[in-house]
């Protein structure tokens, strides 16, 4: 008994002694900072920071090997707390959020192939990754299960939906997705990205000059996630309210539903969500990167300038817009009339852009009130010149100096300068573009009794938006095609008659164009007390002075500013251009796209010194995506926007068209086919299927 006690006691004593010595020898002095930092971290051990767990991250932070904001799991508060512990100040790190480029489409084959296998990784392992669709989502939801923050949910058609509010950018979903279609991408990277041929691009996305991800925002609308729809649009276009109203929507021309049915009313949907944002009366927050310290001057506050300023600001640069008119908006304000784009709405939209922290100087004209020397002295590192096309072409006919003769741009601008033009009862408009139609419809609203639009070609050749032409016809504007004015006759300095000559179109020349030519001695007189010339515009380049920096700017023979197509850089390396002053008169969304393109170039020019080309840049439509038939499509009527009665609208400048109801928008969004590069092209799919079958791999797996 005694023995037992002694032995046990002895063993215990020796053990205790050993442990005591060991704890002395192997004592680890824990850095109290590490403990504090670790306490400030969320403890999720998600590994998103690149360290093995939160402790390792805490050690790295405390020893200065990692910045206090490496934690992606905790969000900005955590970064701030950690920084407070470390006694540092935090510079907001731009969040990187998960997203996928797969937009669905017809992925059914994939799903039935792997009948019974409920997980992407399993499908991938079983079939060694050889599957028909090279990029598309399988829809098994592995990413959903792998997300530690519940930021991914499965959509109704089994496409993952990433919730930006919850996503911390830890990258777990990326590691788990076997198709490699999930990526972490920061807003900066998104803004700098331009379409590439290798991407899965629906035709509408290829066609839109601003490259808006159309299928994505339609999908958001369908699901009622309007906020995300707006943010998707604003990644590419800061003016959805405006474009939703005035854009001639080239995207709809190419819509694949249009080959069998009427195209999806993409622009109505854009307007619908944009109006939704406005009706919330609060501008949605968009991300703005941390300040880079560079300063950029934007000359001209039209859509090109606004878009460039907006994206530069979001990329973290300091921007000042210089505008010669009293207010921003360019042709959107001074060209497009109130009944198409109420200026209250434009104001609200521009306010949202300016509120990002953009400085604005109005009523200052480049060339008169300031010049490049001034901008350099003021410390600007780069300049964007988006001065539009504000000079009107003359008719070059006798009598142009008579009273009653107007220039279209001047005529339209006056409405917004507190000085509505005074016109007579019989008005003639010359031209067939947007300016002509807007001038005609505005004249009607000013009380003209008879408005005649004179155009030297036929209706088919009119460059104005088709919808505008139809509206003008509805409102009772007389169209006089194949006619050109030759002389304006006057009395006491006032015009009373216009002499015009009839035209005919020549047979198509080798390029297929039919030119108008006068029919000899077909001159005719018509009574008119007002004539508005709207036969074309070009940039007003009146700011070039010899011996000044600006004299290095090159001007093309069309009087536009010369620059490199691939970068929008002009002959003066730090001056960039885009919009109407670079291309000649075009449409707003072109200018918006150019604004972002220039912003990209300027960003690289400032931060890296040189501008890398956009690799594989998509400029033409991708032939394979333009399939000519869509099987099994049932006709669903296209949505229509409610509009004012014709009789009611003529006497005033009230907005003519109204927005869709939420139900109608949802129904319209459901019409979208969600085209993708491979997913929807059945022919291509079949061809690829044959290839695959000959490889033998997935031959049996191909049956549905």
């Amino acid at each position, binding site marked *: 008994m005694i023995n037992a006690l002694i032995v*046990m006691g002895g*063993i215990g004593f020796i*053990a205790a002694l050993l*442990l005591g010595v*060991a704890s002395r020898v*192997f*004592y680890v002095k824990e850095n109290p900072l590490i403990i504090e930092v670790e306490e400030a971290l969320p403890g999720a051990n998600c590994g998103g920071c690149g360290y*093995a767990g939160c402790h*390792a991250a805490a050690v790295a932070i405390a020893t200065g090997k990692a910045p206090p904001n490496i934690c992606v799991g905790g969000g900005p508060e955590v970064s701030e707390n950690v920084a407070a512990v470390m006694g540092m100040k935090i510079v907001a790190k731009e969040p990187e959020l998960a997203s996928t480029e797969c937009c669905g489409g017809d992925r059914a084959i994939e799903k039935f192939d792997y009948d019974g296998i409920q997980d992407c990784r399993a499908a991938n392992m079983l079939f060694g990754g050889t599957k028909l669709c090279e990029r598309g989502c399988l829809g098994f939801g592995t990413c959903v299960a792998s997300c530690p923050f519940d930021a991914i949910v499965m959509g109704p058609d089994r496409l993952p939906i990433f919730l930006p509010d919850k996503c911390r950018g830890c990258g777990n979903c990326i590691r788990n997705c076997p198709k490699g279609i999930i990526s972490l991408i920061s807003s900066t990277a998104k803004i700098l990205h331009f379409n590439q041929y290798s991407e899965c691009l629906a035709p509408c996305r290829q066609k839109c000059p601003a490259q808006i991800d159309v299928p994505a925002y339609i999908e958001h609308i369908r699901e009622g996630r309007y906020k995300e729809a707006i943010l998707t649009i604003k990644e590419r276009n800061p003016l959805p309210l405006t474009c939703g109203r005035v854009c001639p929507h080239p995207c709809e021309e190419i819509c694949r539903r249009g080959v069998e049915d009427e195209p999806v009313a993409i622009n109505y949907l854009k307007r619908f969500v944009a109006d939704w944002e406005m009706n919330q009366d609060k501008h949605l927050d968009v991300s703005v990167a941390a300040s880079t310290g560079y300063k950029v001057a934007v000359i001209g506050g039209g859509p090109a300038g606004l878009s460039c300023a907006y994206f530069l600001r979001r990329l973290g640069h300091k921007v000042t817009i210089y505008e010669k008119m009293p207010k921003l908006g360019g042709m959107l304000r001074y060209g497009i009339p109130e009944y198409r784009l109420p200026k209250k709405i434009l104001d609200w939209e521009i306010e949202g852009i300016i509120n990002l922290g953009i400085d604005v100087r109005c009523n200052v004209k480049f060339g008169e009130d300031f010049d490049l020397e001034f901008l350099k002295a003021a410390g600007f590192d780069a300049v964007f010149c988006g001065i539009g096309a504000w000079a009107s072409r003359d008719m070059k006919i006798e009598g142009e100096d008579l009273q009653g003769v107007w220039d279209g741009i001047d005529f339209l601008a006056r409405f917004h300068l507190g000085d509505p033009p005074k016109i007579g009862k019989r008005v003639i408009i010359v031209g067939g573009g947007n300016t002509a139609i807007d001038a005609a419809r505005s004249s009607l609203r000013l009380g003209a009794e008879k408005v005649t639009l004179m155009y030297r070609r036929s209706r088919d050749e009119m460059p104005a938006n088709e919808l505008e032409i139809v509206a003008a016809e509805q409102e009772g504007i007389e169209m006089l095609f194949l006619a050109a004015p030759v002389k304006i006759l006057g009395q006491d300095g006032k015009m009373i008659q216009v002499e015009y000559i009839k035209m005919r179109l020549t047979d198509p020349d080798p390029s297929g164009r039919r030119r108008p030519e006068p029919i000899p001695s077909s001159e005719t007189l018509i009574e008119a007390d007002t004539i508005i010339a709207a036969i074309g515009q070009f940039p007003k380049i009146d700011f070039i002075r010899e011996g000044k920096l600006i004299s290095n700017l090159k001007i093309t023979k069309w009087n536009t500013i010369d620059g490199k197509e691939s970068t929008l850089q002009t002959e003066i390396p730090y001056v960039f251009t885009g919009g109407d002053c670079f291309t000649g008169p075009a449409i707003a969304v072109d200018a918006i796209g150019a604004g972002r393109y220039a912003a990209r170039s300027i960003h690289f020019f400032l931060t890296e010194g040189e501008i890398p080309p956009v690799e594989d840049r998509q400029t033409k439509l991708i032939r394979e995506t333009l399939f000519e038939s869509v099987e099994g499509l049932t006709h669903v009527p296209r949505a229509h926007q409610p509009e004012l009665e014709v009789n009611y609208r003529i006497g005033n400048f009230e907005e003519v068209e109204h927005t869709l109801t939420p139900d109608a928008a949802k129904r319209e969004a459901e019409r979208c086919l969600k085209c993708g590069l491979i997913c929807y092209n059945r022919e291509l799919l079949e061809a690829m299927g044959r290839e695959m079958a000959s490889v033998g791999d997935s031959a049996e797996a191909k049956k549905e």
Partner: protein
Amino acid sequence: MEYILLIISAVLVNNILLAQYLGNCPFLGVSKQMDTALGMGTAVVFTMTLASIITWAVHRWILAPFDLVFLQTIAFILVIASLVQFVEIFMKKMMEPLYRALGIFLPLITTNCAVLGVALLCIKKEYSFPQMVIFSFASGLGFALALVLFAGLRERYAISRIPKALEGTAIGLITAGFMSLAFFGFKGMT
């Protein structure tokens, strides 16, 4: 030859986890991720070998000469507990990453019946010193093997659809059962 048989027997046939059902706590606790399972496995191999050596020595030179073999169990518990503590202190200083990876599971080894079981088995089977070392090392390997295989399976579970009621430990136990059945297939090899 005898040693090889000993190893095969300890690793596969009489696998400490799947045939003798010792050490179930870490088996279920640390088997959700491959990384931790590997860490735990290594720690057990290490501790088990060490513990067996020490307990063997204690038995041979203290308990047996003094005729105190009846104290075996309690003495071994004491020794193993101190040993694990020692290993923990040692690792914290010398093998920081491993220490962190194992986290709260290191103290689990203290109460790990597998370690005690192997120590007792060595005595019971009257192994010589080399036999004892090889047996305990192989048992540790068997433990690590089962743990790692199991973790591999459980990682797949994390992304599979499993009936709600069976999620987590429930499906873990079922799987452990199946694995055990599978390991019974090795019976008769020796």
